[in-house]
């Protein structure tokens, strides 16, 4: 296979602090007068390596995902590939025309109309006027802003701007396309459009480098993925493997002490105190990655100060924005705990198929006595938002399509059927999901 892109031992160094001292011409002149014959004394310059000795190649027509934490060097890499900035050492080779969607809509000018901006943006990205003439209708159509195309862009909403910007960039006739986090913005409909456009480009034989935090999107689009960590290629291989290791690494570093004893933000009378929370899999082992559809057991450790009667336990789930997603509690489940002995113990709840879309959920815990639980103060122990539950994307419906928050919070396992005029029954179902992912 011919190579579309060869990155050979690329290192990019940034000097820290050097600029703050030297942005005034006056100072440069003073230094020139002070040290006319020799170079002025070297200041202790701190440098950071945004990229360290990065090498990889991509074959023509390949689609490669790039994942990594913020500041890992992903964007620097794309900047170097798109020739915006240059490597400190090492070389890159690119076969064919390169376009980057580093930031869609760059070069848009507020005072100009949508149509004018299409031409301007297109030419900035390297398109010819002739090409834009041909594609103009298609671009406007893709962006879905027919009515506003002759309105100055300063009257546009940010969503319209973004759509127009992406529409222009997506119609570029390039051999290599660099995509950076376009999915972080825009409404869901548009994100879907973008993804299918990128997919089409790939089918058309284009080489695509796709940077995203959305691991489901990467999993869906890219057979191969690079994991960039601290400026280096940490892993390069099949997407499924790389993403699995990436998530595992992440959760290990994120999920800290499940200890709830020292938590200050709590209410209640204190007969019982929650001491810990654990996420366990079916085998009773701690789970480090929890994905949509997983079976999950939540174990709550407590310490009761005395023997108690009619204990009740409950868990509430909220989103980051405070939307109440679900509540599970012993009385509603119809489970009675008539007697709770003094001392330490734990209560477990098993969730069959965690059919929630990926993202962060906050767990609140409460436990109370037989008296009707009217306010947090009456409870024995109440811990609002005491633990984050991070759910990672998965192929929930076994359809190859990643599902995200754009689909709401809840995933409903489903089976489709078609009965049309010609074929009375048993058409091939489009998607079927049981909601229980096989554990690997």
């Amino acid at each position, binding site marked *: 296979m011919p190579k579309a892109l060869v990155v050979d031992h690329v290192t990019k160094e940034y000097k820290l602090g050097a600029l703050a001292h030297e942005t005034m011409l006056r100072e*440069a002149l003073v230094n020139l007068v002070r040290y006319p014959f020799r170079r002025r004394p070297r200041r202790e310059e701190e440098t950071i390596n945004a990229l360290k000795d990065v090498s990889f190649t991509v074959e023509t027509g390949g689609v490669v995902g790039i994942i990594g934490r913020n500041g890992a060097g992903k964007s620097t890499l794309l900047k170097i590939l798109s020739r*915006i900035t240059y490597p400190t050492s090492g070389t890159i080779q690119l076969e064919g025309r390169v376009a*980057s969607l580093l930031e869609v809509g760059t070069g848009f000018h507020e005072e100009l109309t949508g149509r004018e901006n299409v031409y301007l943006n297109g*030419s*900035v990205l*390297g398109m*010819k006027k002739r090409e834009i003439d041909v594609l103009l209708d298609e671009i406007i159509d893709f962006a879905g802003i027919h009515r506003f195309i002759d309105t100055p862009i300063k009257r546009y909403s940010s969503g319209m701007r973004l759509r127009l910007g992406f529409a222009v960039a997506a119609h570029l006739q390039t051999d290599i396309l660099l995509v950076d986090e376009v999915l972080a913005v825009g409404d869901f409909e548009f994100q879907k459009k973008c993804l299918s456009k990128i997919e089409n480009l790939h089918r058309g034989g284009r080489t695509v480098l796709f940077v995203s935090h959305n691991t489901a999107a990467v999993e869906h689009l890219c057979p191969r993925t690079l994991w960039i960590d601290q400026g280096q290629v940490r892993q390069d291989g099949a997407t499924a493997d790389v993403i699995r290791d990436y998530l595992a690494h992440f959760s290990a570093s994120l999920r800290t002490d499940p200890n709830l004893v020292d938590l200050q933000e709590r209410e209640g009378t204190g007969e019982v105190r929650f001491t810990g929370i654990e996420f366990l899999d079916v085998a009773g082992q701690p789970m480090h990655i929890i994905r949509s559809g997983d079976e999950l057991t939540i174990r709550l450790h407590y310490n009761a100060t005395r023997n108690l009667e009619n204990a009740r336990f409950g868990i509430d789930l909220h989103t980051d924005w405070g939307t109440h997603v679900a509540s599970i509690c012993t009385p509603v489940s119809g489970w009675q705990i008539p007697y709770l002995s003094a001392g330490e113990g734990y209560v477990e709840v098993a969730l069959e198929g965690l059919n929630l879309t990926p993202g962060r959920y906050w767990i609140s815990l409460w436990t109370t006595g037989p008296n009707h639980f009217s306010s947090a103060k009456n409870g024995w122990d109440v811990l609002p938002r005491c633990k984050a539950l991070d759910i990672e994307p998965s192929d929930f419906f076994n359809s190859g399509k990643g599902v995200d928050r754009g689909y709401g919070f809840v995933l409903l396992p489903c089976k489709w059927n078609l009965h049309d005029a010609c074929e009375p029954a048993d058409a091939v179902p489009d998607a079927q999901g049981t909601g229980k992912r096989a554990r690997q």
Partner: protein
Amino acid sequence: MLLRWCKNAWPYRELFFFLAWRDVKIRYRQTVLGASWAVLQPLVTMLVFTVLFGRMAKVPSDGIPYPLFSYSALLLWTYFSVALSGGSGALVGNAELIRKVYFPREALPAAPILAALVDLSVGMILLFGMMVYYHVPFTWHLLFLPLLVVELVVFAIAVSLVLASINVKYRDVKHALPFVIQLWMFLSPVIYPTTMVPERYRFLLALNPLTGIIETWRACIFSGRIMNWSLLEISIGVTALFLFLGASYFKSTERKFADII
């Protein structure tokens, strides 16, 4: 080096045009007077100069009516100063673009310089009007005017390439430039003829490419004037030198633009 540059920049040739077109559009959008600003600025300056230097200070104008004498040069001068301030601020003003997209960076300083040509053309109409008013005959020498404009554009680009790239690193340029432009006007034969300057200093004046351009410009308009070829030759030579130095400096600093802008 030139060849490689051409090969690299050729696919982007339309970008130069589009950026210039953008500058023209933006300049006159939401303005009441629109393109008449192009005439107003040299016209009002001309009126002031006519009163100050023509009437009160009695600066000689080699027999040409002073308003026409100063306006013809002010037209070029206004163009040059607008082009220079636009061109030198173009990189910093488009920092966003530089940080996000690759394209030949020269297009940014070149754009406002090309855009200012629209103003110059509008101003030319008034110049021709004044020539009719003062009964200055139209001769075939006028055909050389566009060539002089080409040299002026090249010189403006050469100087802007240097100033624009210095400006990326040292923002002082924007403070120094208005002052430099003002001084520069008095060092160019805009309000006075070169003949007013003592013979032994004329050589120094000639090193300023604008001297040759303006004097030749006047010689083409007023056919009675003597054409000073050596002035023009020096002017073209210095312009070429500036272009070489400007382009080299720009090229050597270009790689760091995105990192430090």
